C-alpha cells in the first residue's frame, strides 16, 4: 500500500465512523423499535440507567445502539451525555478566560453577560419599552405567518405534573421563605 492509499483508507475510515455518534443515558425503561413510531415493531429493550450510543433523531424519537442492537426509543427516554463533563467543549474554553471571584463568575473577556448588580440598579427605559411594544403583532398577522409556514393548530391536552411528592421548600429566594 502506498502512502497515498494509506491516507485514503484512513480518510474513509474517519468519514465512515459516526463522528456524530454521542453517548446517551437511558432515563427510563423503553422498547427498542424498528422505526420512529409507537406502532412500529419492538425489536428489543433498553433498560433505565444503561449507557447507549445515540445515532439519530426524528420527531419525538431517537435512534440508539444498545448492547449491539439498533432501534428507536422515545426522545425523552434517553438523554445525551456528550459534553456533560464539559471537556473539549468550546464553551469550557471560553469559561477558562474568566475568573471566579467570591462565588460570582466575573467575565474578564470580551463577552458581555447580564450581571445582577446591573439588573438591581437598572432604571426604567421608556424609549426602549416603546420600541418593544411597537414590534408587537396582531393575532391576524400571527395566523397568516403560521399559515405561510404550513403550520396548523393541533389539539393537545395539558400535561399534568408527574406524580411525586412536591418539595415544600426549595432553594430559590422567590419561593424560599
Amino acid at each position, binding site marked *: 500500500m502506498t502512502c497515498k492509499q494509506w491516507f485514503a483508507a484512513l480518510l474513509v475510515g474517519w468519514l465512515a465512523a459516526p463522528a456524530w455518534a454521542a453517548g446517551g443515558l437511558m432515563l427510563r425503561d423503553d422498547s427498542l423499535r424498528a422505526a420512529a413510531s409507537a406502532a412500529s415493531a419492538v425489536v428489543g429493550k433498553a433498560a433505565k440507567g444503561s449507557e447507549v450510543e445515540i445515532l439519530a433523531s426524528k420527531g419525538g424519537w431517537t435512534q440508539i445502539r444498545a448492547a449491539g442492537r439498533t432501534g428507536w426509543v422515545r426522545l425523552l427516554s434517553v438523554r445525551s451525555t456528550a459534553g456533560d463533563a464539559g471537556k473539549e467543549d468550546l*464553551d469550557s474554553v471560553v469559561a477558562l478566560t474568566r475568573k471566579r471571584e467570591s462565588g460570582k463568575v466575573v467575565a474578564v473577556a470580551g463577552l458581555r453577560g447580564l450581571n445582577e448588580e*446591573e439588573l438591581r440598579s437598572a432604571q426604567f427605559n421608556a424609549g426602549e419599552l416603546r420600541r418593544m411594544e411597537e414590534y408587537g403583532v396582531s393575532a391576524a398577522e*400571527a395566523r397568516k405567518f403560521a399559515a405561510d409556514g404550513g403550520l*396548523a393548530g393541533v389539539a393537545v391536552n395539558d*400535561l399534568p405534573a408527574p406524580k411525586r411528592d412536591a*418539595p415544600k421548600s426549595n432553594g430559590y429566594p422567590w419561593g424560599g421563605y
Partner: protein
Amino acid sequence: MKVRIAVLLACMAVSAQAGDIDRFFKDLLKGKRPAEQQQTMAPPPQPAPQPAPQPAAPPERPADQLLRALMSGNMSVEEERRIGEKIAGNFLGAVKLVPDANLQRYVNLVGRWVALQSDRPDLAWHFGVVDTDDINAFASPGGYIFLTKGLYRRLGNEAELAGVLGHEIGHVIRKHHIKVMQQSQFIALGASLLGRKMKDENQLIQNLIGNGAEIMSRGLDKESEFEADRVGMVLAARAGYDAFSLPKVLEDIGHVSDQDSRVALLFKTHPHPRDRFDRLAEAVGDRLDNLPEGKTLGQRFYVLR
C-alpha cells in the same frame, strides 16, 4: 440571606406600628380606602375657597387599589400588565433590544402564534431579543417576554424558538410572578411602606418587585419552572411545531459548562437543564406517542448577522 434579613426588618417595622397596620388591613379587606378613614377621623371639612390652579402633576394612581387586588387575588388584566410593564421597562434599562427590526418582528410573529394556543390569547403579548451574550430568557406579568441574543444564537430552528417562548408564556399564563407577590410577606412589606410614605401605585410596584429589575435575577420556585416546561412543550405542539424542541434546547444548554459565566444567572435561577429534561420525560411518558410529527421550519429561521 440578605433577603431574609430585609423581610425580617420589614416585619419588625410592621409590628412597630401594629395598630396602624391592623386597621389598615381591615380597611383594605372591607374595601375602604385608608384615606377615607383618615377623613372621617378628621374634623368635618369646612367649605374652602376655590384653590388656585395647580400645575398639572403626572398622573398618579392610588396604591391601595392594586394592593387590595393583589390581596384578594382578583387582579385585573390591566393591573397585571402595569406590573409587567414596570419590570420590563426596568429590565430594558439594564440591557437594550438587539437593533434588528427584522429579528424582533420575526420573534413577535412566532411568539404571538404560540401564545394564541394558550388560554390567554388576547393578552398584549410582546417579545424582544436583548443584546447580551448571556444564555437566558425572561417573562414579566401581562405578556412581556425576553430572550437573550446568546440563547437565540444556540437555537437551530423556529420550533426551538417556539419551545423557549412557550416556556416563558407558561410563566405568564400561570401567573407565577403574581403568585409570588401575593405571598403575605411581600404584601406586608408593601403595606408597611404604604402606611407610612407610599402614595402612588408606581411606588408600590417598585417596592413589590425590589430594586430595578432584580426580580429577573431571582428564581421562581422549581415547580413553577417544571410547570412552564410542560406548558412550553404543549403550546409548541398545539402550534404545529415539533413538541420535542424544548427538551432538545434543554439538552443543548445542559452541555454548557457551569463554569461559563453566560449561564451563571440561568443556572442560579433554574433547576439544572438535565433535571428539567428528566422531569419532562416523567411528565410526558407515552402521552405524546400519537402526536403527528411537528414542523421545525429550519429554513425560515431568522439568522442573526
